[in-house]
């Protein structure tokens, strides 16, 4: 018998072991739901999968009686647009600040302490300010995501920039490069995969900001919907929505990982080595 730390399951077993906890959770849910519904068919707390399917069928494939929209897709689209816009802004600003403070000691001296302080401000506490300044429309929601995520990305990129071995910068100089060329040809290409990593890591908090902003002031969006139907205890809508948000988060993360692998093959090799 091998030591436990050396015991690695074969591939087929690994897939089975990975699926097992999901199956167990679903089974527990189904039996609990069945038990409650058997006692009280009106129970709303643990809806059956059929009920959830009906709710989603209604929201996704039948036009809303009030507006004529397909609410599920409308919500998804609005939320993804806000999330995407917020992340694009955050990634661009974060890259800019991080790169500049990391690459140029002069800017580091003047902006790095500011960046540290700003990153400690809780973004959620700024939400009222954003609502006051930008109104209750789209801008304040996108701004919350951007403001919440930018400092994280900026600090991460700054750190990564400083981690690039000094030798490479000296080498570039001995090849006659000036500061601009070093930034364009040596630093930015090496930081792009790290930017993708930073975006992947910060997507969790971006979703948090998005849903919070939508819950407080919005007329559509995934976060808006779950908080709206909470009033009617509509677990049959909330649970599929949460699952859908999770799936979206997973897909986005997966796509970013694939993008990084195909666009920056050298990065994957480096990761593999270290």
């Amino acid at each position, binding site marked *: 018998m091998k030591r436990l730390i050396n015991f690695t399951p074969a591939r087929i077993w690994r897939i089975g072991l990975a699926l097992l906890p999901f199956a167990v959770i679903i089974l527990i849910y189904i039996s609990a739901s069945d038990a409650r519904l058997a006692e009280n068919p009106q129970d709303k707390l643990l809806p059956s999968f059929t009920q959830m399917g009906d709710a989603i069928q209604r929201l996704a494939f039948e036009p809303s009686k009030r507006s004529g929209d397909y609410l599920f897709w409308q919500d998804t689209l609005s939320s993804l647009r806000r999330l995407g816009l917020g992340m694009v802004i955050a990634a661009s600003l974060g890259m800019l600040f991080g790169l500049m403070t990391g690459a140029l000691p002069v800017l580091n001296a003047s902006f790095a302490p500011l960046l540290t302080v700003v990153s400690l401000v809780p973004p959620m506490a700024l939400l009222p300010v954003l609502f006051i300044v930008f109104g209750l429309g789209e801008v304040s929601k996108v701004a919350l995501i951007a403001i919440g995520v930018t400092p994280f990305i900026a600090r991460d990129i700054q750190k990564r920039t400083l981690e690039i*071995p000094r*030798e*490479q910068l*000296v*080498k*570039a*100089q*001995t*090849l*006659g*490069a*000036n500061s*601009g*060329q070093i930034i*364009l*040809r*040596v630093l930015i*290409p*090496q930081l792009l995969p790290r930017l993708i990593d930073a975006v992947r890591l910060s997507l969790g908090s971006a979703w948090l900001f998005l849903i919070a902003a939508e819950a407080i002031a919005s007329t559509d969006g995934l976060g808006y919907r779950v908080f709206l139907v909470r009033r009617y205890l509509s677990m049959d809508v909330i649970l599929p929505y949460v699952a859908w948000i999770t799936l979206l988060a997973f897909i986005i993360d997966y796509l970013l990982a694939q993008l990084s692998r195909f666009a*920056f*093959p*050298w*990065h994957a*090799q*480096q990761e593999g*080595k270290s």
Partner: protein
Amino acid sequence: MIEINNVWKRFGDNVILENISATVKEGEFITLVGASGCGKSTFLKMLLGTDSASQGSILLDGKPIPSEPDAERGVVFQQYSVFPHLNVLENVVIAREFEKTKLGFLWGAAKKAAREEAAALLDVVGLAHMKNRYPDELSGGMRQRLAIAQALILKPRILLLDEPFGALDPGIRADMHELVLDLWRKHKLTVFMVTHDLKEGFHLGTRLWVFDKRRVDAQAPNAYGASITYDLPVGVCEQEILDEIDESLATKNQAEQV
């Protein structure tokens, strides 16, 4: 070509180098040896321009040596010398791109010419078959060959090598010695090579500098710095002297370890 006049280097109270003076002619191949931490790398950094002397001057063609690295002085470090995000060919081409364009990107025919030139150079260092690989796929020896090719494409007058083969196997190291000597002769370079391997210093190049402390105060080991204790032409001197140096450095190394 290079004149070193009474150079001192201090970090606070610690004297690293004391009163180094020497003259180097164009085309010399100088090997710098010494115990670890004796300041030979610091000296190389001064030649490179990333570090400056606390006192004294280093003159290149009668003018103070630029205090920033430039294309006149190529360099190969022990590691991290190549760009991990560029493949082998691009790693060499990039030097021409830095040289010829403002933003560092070449296009079309100019790019093609630069690629051909780089490919020819890679052929010389024996990396022709690895052109499309990334540095992380190469062995340590290949990476150093790449770093050398990269340093040479702009034809620098001075080549600085900071323990370039320190991390390589002895067999590969011998191949690399051949390569460096060959390139040095062909390109008429002035080479400074730092090494902690005395044998490397004994048979490479034309001149051997041994960095060591002339005076040692047991109560304050950092009160005195190292200077060039031996300045020998390589290949001419007696085996006895080399043994003597070997001995003195070996005891110093042991003393440090204790």
